């Protein structure tokens, strides 16, 4: 009974927050409500017994997307407290969302009502996957193509955002923020490492760990630390592409190692080496995701030569 009450309150709160975010008069309020919506959504995923999604939603949906929206707002150079939206401006996105939602619901109705056989297939193949957590097995073994392409999408997003990113405004750091970010940094690294390692047997994995690392790096960058973390730095560029590079190299190696009497399949790991391969890919994917997302949020510090030209 109390759980039913909780679920009902959660659903109503989700709907109310979503509507309030869509229809709010000011973009700042919309972003704040969206972050609150992300947190409630994470709670909803946790209630639906999907802790992997809950972790990802809390880190990406609430944390990092909110930070991205805020940094986009701050760089628009407009007075963020006065940018009230007119009714048509607020209704257009709502219409779009309602149309998309209708499409998704129509698609949902066409799903067969019997349980998907894929769950049983995944569980049966779990022994050969190298990890004991089915979500990680699907993401990095059975369907590693999808994960590889996700990394490519992330890289493309960064490459698309870099040319239009304006130069960072000079901001002053504050001693309290600075010491707090320094205090947080080791905890963030510890927690990200734990999430990465736990991904093999529990909810966790490269994306969650990467986003957590990125959050720590963004806080440090906002306090004028980690100034080497910019696109100008060769090693950072290498780090950004390292996820995809290691993924592809390992896949080629796995193809080459496949014995001649077995059909070679792209992106399928030999069962004996699968655990190590998955860990290797996840470590580099975590670092790549963290650096990509950090660069996306905090952008680029103004290059030295441009600064001297403008002076």
């Amino acid at each position, binding site marked *: 009974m109390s759980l039913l009450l909780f679920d009902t309150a959660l659903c109503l709160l989700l709907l109310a927050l979503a509507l309030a975010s869509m229809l709010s008069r000011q973009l700042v309020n919309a972003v704040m409500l969206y972050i609150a919506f992300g947190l409630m959504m994470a709670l909803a995923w946790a209630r639906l017994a999907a802790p992997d999604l809950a972790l990802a939603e809390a880190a990406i949906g609430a944390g990092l997307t909110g930070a991205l929206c805020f940094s986009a707002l701050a760089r628009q150079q407009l007075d963020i407290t006065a940018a009230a939206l007119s009714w048509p401006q607020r209704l257009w996105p709502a219409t779009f969302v309602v149309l998309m939602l209708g499409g998704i619901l129509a698609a949902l109705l066409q799903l067969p009502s019997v349980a998907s056989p894929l769950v049983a297939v995944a569980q049966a193949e779990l022994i050969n996957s190298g990890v004991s957590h089915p979500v990680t097995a699907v993401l990095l073994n059975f369907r590693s193509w999808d994960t590889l392409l996700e990394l490519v999408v992330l890289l493309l997003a960064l490459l698309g955002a870099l040319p239009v990113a304006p130069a960072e405004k000079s901001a002053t750091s*504050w001693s*309290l923020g600075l010491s707090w970010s320094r205090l947080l940094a080791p905890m963030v690294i510890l927690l990200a490492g734990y999430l990465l390692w736990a991904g093999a047997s529990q909810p966790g994995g490269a994306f969650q760990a990467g986003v957590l690392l990125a959050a720590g790096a963004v806080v440090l960058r906002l306090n004028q630390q980690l100034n080497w973390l910019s696109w100008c730095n060769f090693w950072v560029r290498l780090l950004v592409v390292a996820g995809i590079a290691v993924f592809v190299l390992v896949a080629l190696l796995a193809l080459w190692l496949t014995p001649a009497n077995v059909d070679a399949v792209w992106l399928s790991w030999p069962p004996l080496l699968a655990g190590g391969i998955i860990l290797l890919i996840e470590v580099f994917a975590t670092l790549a995701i963290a650096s990509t997302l950090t660069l996306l949020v905090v952008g680029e510090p103004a290059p030295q030569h441009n600064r001297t030209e403008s002076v």
Partner: protein
Amino acid sequence: MTNSAEQLSALSILLSSLLLLVGLFFFIAGSIGMLRFPDSFSRLHAVTKADSLGLGSIVAGLMFYGDLWQNLLLLLIWLLVMASGSVSCQLLARFAKTQQDKA
């Protein structure tokens, strides 16, 4: 240390419920303060002070139900939330102060 609600003594249940209720009271007071207070500084004051205390007493109330390890984690959560709440309160107050000085 007991693990389930059935094994708790009546006194523990009473204490834990009392702490949870006190926590809820402070949360509600803080939220009402945020909605009703006139300026940013008093609103920040209401939210961060009352919520830190409210979360603290909710954590203390929940500790009757957990084992040692869970209680340590709860304590860590409380400390982290309290610290980050205080830091963001100071940052927001500083932002509000600069806006006020500009106007």
